[in-house]
């Protein structure tokens, strides 16, 4: 959970999923950062083992990953960005 004292209204918490694991990037990121920049930040963080809950992986490839953005709500009063694998399936 982010420290609301330091998470600015234009910043967001970045949540990353990679290789079946999931964790929050330790630092706030700008909410309007581009998808490409998010992938770069996340890839570097995964390579170096900077994301709690995700083991360091030098083979990380996030090119096909999706960025979801959710603005602050009454229930979750901070902006959130999720970087995750595509989920096209549910059936076959």
């Amino acid at each position, binding site marked *: 959970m982010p420290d609301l004292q330091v998470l600015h209204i234009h910043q967001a918490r970045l949540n990353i*999923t990679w290789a079946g*694991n*999931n964790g929050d990037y330790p630092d706030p990121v700008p909410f309007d950062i581009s998808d490409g920049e998010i992938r770069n930040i996340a890839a570097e963080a995964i390579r170096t083992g900077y994301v709690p809950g995700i083991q360091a992986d030098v083979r990380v490839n996030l090119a096909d990953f999706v960025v979801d953005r*959710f603005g602050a709500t009454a229930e979750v009063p901070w902006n959130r960005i999720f970087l*995750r694998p*595509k989920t096209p399936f549910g059936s*076959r």
Partner: protein
Amino acid sequence: MAAGVVIVGVGALGSHLVLWARNWPARIKIVDYDRVEQKNLLAQFHTRMGLGKNKAQALQQAMQGMFGTRLEAVPHRLSEDNAEVLLGGGDLVVDCTDNAATRRVIQVSVRRLGLPCVHGALSADGGFARVVWDELFVVDEEGSEGAATCENGEALAFFALAAAHLAGAVQRFLATGERRSCQITPTTVTRIA
């Protein structure tokens, strides 16, 4: 009168969802045009007795035989032409389909009909899932042709885990109206809303 729930797609996710749906206070309709194949037995809640049968009808018979659960089976492909007939009249739509085109048909239809809808979606490697209510859901395009799919049985337990979370989201909605979305890995559940 019990709520009407329409589940579209009873493959890896939808078939397991039906297993966990048997105690819902609801009338359940399941829609799927596909047939049960041998390979489906590895990753889906379908049995050898259903081989060659329509998935919706095979699951209807299995649930009736095992638990006495009564389901309405619709052995047709959901399309723009029949979506409003198949989805309308219910109180909730659950999307467990496997392609972007059908998901878009569902999304357009439920928004037009004003129906609540929750989407269940899996990644190609079967190691990540989302349970997302329609107001937050963006349809992902399929990956490149020849990409891995979750057909083998390695992710069977994860499919059941994802289906259980989806069933819980529906049950919570039926009981309280709350729409809780989350994303799931084999080791974590992260609430989105």
